[in-house]
C-alpha cells in the first residue's frame, strides 16, 4: 500500500493534477513498449525507477 501511495504521490507531483496523473498511469505508453505505467511498475515489484526517466523528461521538457 505504501509503495502504491509513493507511486501516486510521485506521479501527481509530476503532473500537478490527480486526474491527469491517474489517467497517465492507466494509458499505454510507447516508452514502455505499450505497457501502461501502472503495469510496468507492478511487474517490476513497484520499483519507481522504471518510470523516473519518463517523468523526468516530462518535467524538464526533453521532448525531442
Amino acid at each position, binding site marked *: 500500500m505504501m509503495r502504491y501511495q509513493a507511486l501516486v504521490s510521485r506521479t501527481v507531483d509530476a503532473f500537478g493534477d490527480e486526474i491527469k496523473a491517474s489517467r497517465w498511469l492507466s494509458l499505454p505508453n*510507447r516508452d514502455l513498449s505499450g505497457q501502461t505505467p501502472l503495469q510496468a511498475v507492478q511487474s517490476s515489484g513497484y520499483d519507481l525507477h522504471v518510470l523516473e526517466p519518463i517523468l523526468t523528461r516530462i518535467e524538464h*521538457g*526533453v*521532448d525531442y
Partner: protein
Amino acid sequence: MTPEDLELDPSFFLSHQPLTLYRLARARYANLSGIGAAMAPGRWNRRGEEAIYTSTEMGVPILERLVHTPRELIPSNLALMKIGVSGNWESHKNAIIDPKTGGCFWFYRSLAEAKDAFRNGPLMFTAGIRPFAVAVLSVIVPVWNAVLFPQGIAFWEHVSLDTSLTTNIE
C-alpha cells in the same frame, strides 16, 4: 517531403538577432541547468551531458509535446521559458562564432547530418569545439530547434533566461 529530406538555411540565425528560444518545462525547473536531460537524455544528448531542449518558434515546444501526449495529459505545472542568445557573431559555413569569447552556435542543416554526427560522437563536442548550442531541425515541422549545452564554451556569456517572461501555462 518528409522532415528527413528538408534542409534549412542557417542565415536564419544571423537575421534573428538577438535570438529568442523557447522551452516548455515544469515551472520548478524553469532554469538553465540542463540537469533533467543529463539524467534522462533525449534524441540529441547522452546520459551525463547537461542539455536544454528548445525551439526557435514559441508554439513548437507545445507541439512537440502534443505529438506524443494527449492534450488532457499535458501537466498543469508547466512554464514556457524564453531564453535569449546574443553575441558579436562571425558567420561560418556551419556555425556562428563570437571570436572574442570563442562561443560557437553550430548548425546541422538536415536531420541526416545531425544523426550522422550524433552516431559518431556527442553533439556537445561537435568539431572538437564544444559549442554552447547546436541547431537541429524539428522532426515534426520545418523549424529550427536548438539544444543548449551549459558546459559548452562561453555558454553563460551568450545565453540568458528572462525570468520576467517565463509564463505559466495550463
